[in-house]
């Protein structure tokens, strides 16, 4: 059989990340990026958010929210650079920077969410 490409693996991550991003990112950005800081809605107090953050289910949810969209970005940005800026000759370094960046973000998310004091 001909050598199989690994593209399918990265595409699945892109696809899953795209679904998570489509469903969840807008409300999170709206709430914590605009509505709460600007006072459109009352800011939840610190204790309430910390209580939420302590729940294991919430931490798993936040891990998925952070990691999958990052891999979605990595894949999409990589191909945008290939096709948009026609830099396919830099494909190794682009590959490492994109997926490596997503991996670093995932590790940071895991570290922050592993346990909350």
């Amino acid at each position, binding site marked *: 059989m001909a050598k199989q490409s690994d593209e399918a693996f990265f595409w699945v991550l892109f696809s899953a990340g795209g679904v998570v*991003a489509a469903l969840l990112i*807008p409300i999170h950005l709206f709430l*914590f*990026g605009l509505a709460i800081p600007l006072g459109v809605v009352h800011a939840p107090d610190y204790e309430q958010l910390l209580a*939420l953050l302590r729940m294991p289910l919430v931490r798993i949810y936040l891990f998925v929210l952070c990691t999958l969209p990052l891999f979605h970005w990595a894949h999409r940005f990589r191909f945008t650079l290939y096709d*948009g800026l026609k830099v396919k000759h830099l494909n190794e370094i682009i590959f490492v920077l994109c997926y490596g960046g997503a991996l670093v*973000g995932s590790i940071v998310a895991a570290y922050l969410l592993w346990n909350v004091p």
Partner: protein
Amino acid sequence: MRPETLESTKRAVNYTPYHPRWYRPRVSVYWWLGEWHYLKFILRELSSVFVAVTVIETLMLIRALRSGPDAYARFLECMRNPWVVLLNVVSLFFVLFHTITWFNLAPSAMPVRMAGKRVPDALVAAPSYVAWLVISVFVAWLVLR
């Protein structure tokens, strides 16, 4: 020419069938500025950058919450910075653009047929929008109650 000479001449020359060079026009780096729908495609792909921006802001929020109430207050102050507000408004536009284009692609990616007839695209995309609305309301309720 005598037959023997002809045969040896044929063996001496290696003939290959004629094939012209493939036509590969050089494409400009700015090809995507040529048509509106090319630009729209690139903007859709760039929406992923603003998705990543939101993830980074979420990680900053989590770090602030872990550090204490002062850090949380400082995070909110940071989000009130005019440049950050501008970034977030632009990000919100792109993130919504991602959601809408993503859901609207579903019927094309997975054509649904029932009883031999193709189900209308709007009907296939609708459940995604409903799910999006329900989930968003639930998250907002969980955070704001």
